[in-house]
């Protein structure tokens, strides 16, 4: 694992639950108390009538954002881990090279392009975004799950077989627990990308925290943009620090 990630993982471990909690509190405060900051936003937009985005409640937008990302992430984890496990079993080995290559080539696709290409096929709205996020979010999860499962010490795998563990016991008790840190890192990448991509989804008709930004850009209201950007940034940091906390420091 790379130096930076390890260091930040160690750091966040020492902080414990504090970091995600602080971000969460800030996020909720920002959602509920945006009006209190009206004076501040007035500074950037002295001429506009409205400086606080009012078309929808920030809490509702946050909820929708989380719903879209959450549903897509949940499905992507189930499908991605499932697919990676399937192609590493004896029955699915034929598909391993193809799935591995697809997962690594697919990550070259820019998420915006995937989102844009999903619209002509699936149409506008929330559902196409979930599908696009799901498809894109699968790739890092599949790739990391494969890396985690394939990276297990061959001696350990051999011993598990030699001791008479069944395929299912090996998977549940040995392979998945040992691959877990790498899988979790894949899920973290996937969710981080999806939070960002979902915001861009506001341009294709999904109502979420991207809304104030898009609407601010369209109407030339920098205050709206800042409010949306602030909330999305806080959400991303909150979720990311949560994953950093969950991810065990690579113990060898």
């Amino acid at each position: 694992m790379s130096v930076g990630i390890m260091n930040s993982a160690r750091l966040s471990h020492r902080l414990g639950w504090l970091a995600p909690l602080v971000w969460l509190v800030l996020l909720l405060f920002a959602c509920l108390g945006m009006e209190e900051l009206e004076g501040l936003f007035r500074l950037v937009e002295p001429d506009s009538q409205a400086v606080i985005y009012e078309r929808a409640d920030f809490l509702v937008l946050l909820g929708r954002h989380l719903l879209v990302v959450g549903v897509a992430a949940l499905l992507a984890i189930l499908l991605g881990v499932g697919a990676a496990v399937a192609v590493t079993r004896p029955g699915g080995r034929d598909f391993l090279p193809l799935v591995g290559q697809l997962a690594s080539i697919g990550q070259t696709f820019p998420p915006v392009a995937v989102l844009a290409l999903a619209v002509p096929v699936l149409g506008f709205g929330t559902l196409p975004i979930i599908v696009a996020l799901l498809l894109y979010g699968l790739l890092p999860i599949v790739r990391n799950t494969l890396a985690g499962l394939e990276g297990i010490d061959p001696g350990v795998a051999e011993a598990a077989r030699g001791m008479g563990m069944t395929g299912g016991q090996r998977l549940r008790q040995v392979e998945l627990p040992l691959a877990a840190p790498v899988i979790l890192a894949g899920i973290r990448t996937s969710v981080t990308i999806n939070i960002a991509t979902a915001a861009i989804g506001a341009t294709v008709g999904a109502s979420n925290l991207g809304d104030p930004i898009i609407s601010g850009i369209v109407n030339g209201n920098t205050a709206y943009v800042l409010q949306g950007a602030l909330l999305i940034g806080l959400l991303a940091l909150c979720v990311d620090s949560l994953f950093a906390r969950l991810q065990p420091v690579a113990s060898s």
Partner: protein
Amino acid sequence: MIELIHVTKRFGDVVAVDDVSLSVGKGELCVLVGTSGCGKSTTLRMINRLIEHSDGEIHLDGQPVREFREEVLRRRIGYAIQSTGLFPHWTVERNIGLVPRLLKWPASRVRERVEELMALLDLSMGEFAGKYPSQLSGGQAQRVGVARALAADPEILLMDEPFGALDPITRESLQDELARLQARLHKTIVFVTHDMDEALRLADRLVVMHQGRIVQQGHPIELLREPADEFVESLLGGEDRGLKEAALLPVSERMTPLGPRLVAKERVAQHATLREALSIMLWRHVERLAVVDDDDIPIGELSLRRLVGARGHESPGP
């Protein structure tokens, strides 16, 4: 009891094991030796079906191994390997208890058994039970590996170069330990190694393999005295064979009763090997040693002539 009857293993076009027949009796420690790639590991791994044989039959107590369910077969056979294969995310205690738990022993019995095994292998329960494999030294990890292999008290133990990665001193102490355990437990053991000294030291039966075939098998002394061909001879150490044989024989084998002559000044214990006796003679520049018992009381003597096995007037040879 393990029987291999005309067993062959092919990988694609490559014949890894070629028509091997071998019978390992109950309580016997059978060592497979040979250069790397000679098929010794493959032979071992066919016994617990980590590799399926292509032709021939392998029997366990008269029953073909193919008739067992793989997992059931493997749980009946202990297995220890060079890299230990300890699960890095489990504690020592949990690692050792693996097979008993797979066999659904009650928790209390598993714990008792783990305690028993850790005592048997000189691992202090208080110190090691809660440790993870990464916190163990190579020798400790291998002890845990052996304990895990013995956990469900299997009749049969397969060991694939278990001490290969250890430093010479640790390796020797674990070899002694294995010999001690075997004297107590009388398991049927198949042991693979490429370390000839280890093989000679441990084997009841030595099996030399070359290019997938068995070239010679028998008691180590038999092989040392009458190697079947040049390959076995060179594998056994060529010119060094005399010393290797001497290392297998105790002083008591060549000792003569105390004679009328003065007792020699230099001494050797009766349980020492002939090789050690020879070393003392070389070091002290003497041709005669007094053989002493455990209380350091002389009980016989050993001359250089007798040591090298020359037939002479002193007494008829063994």
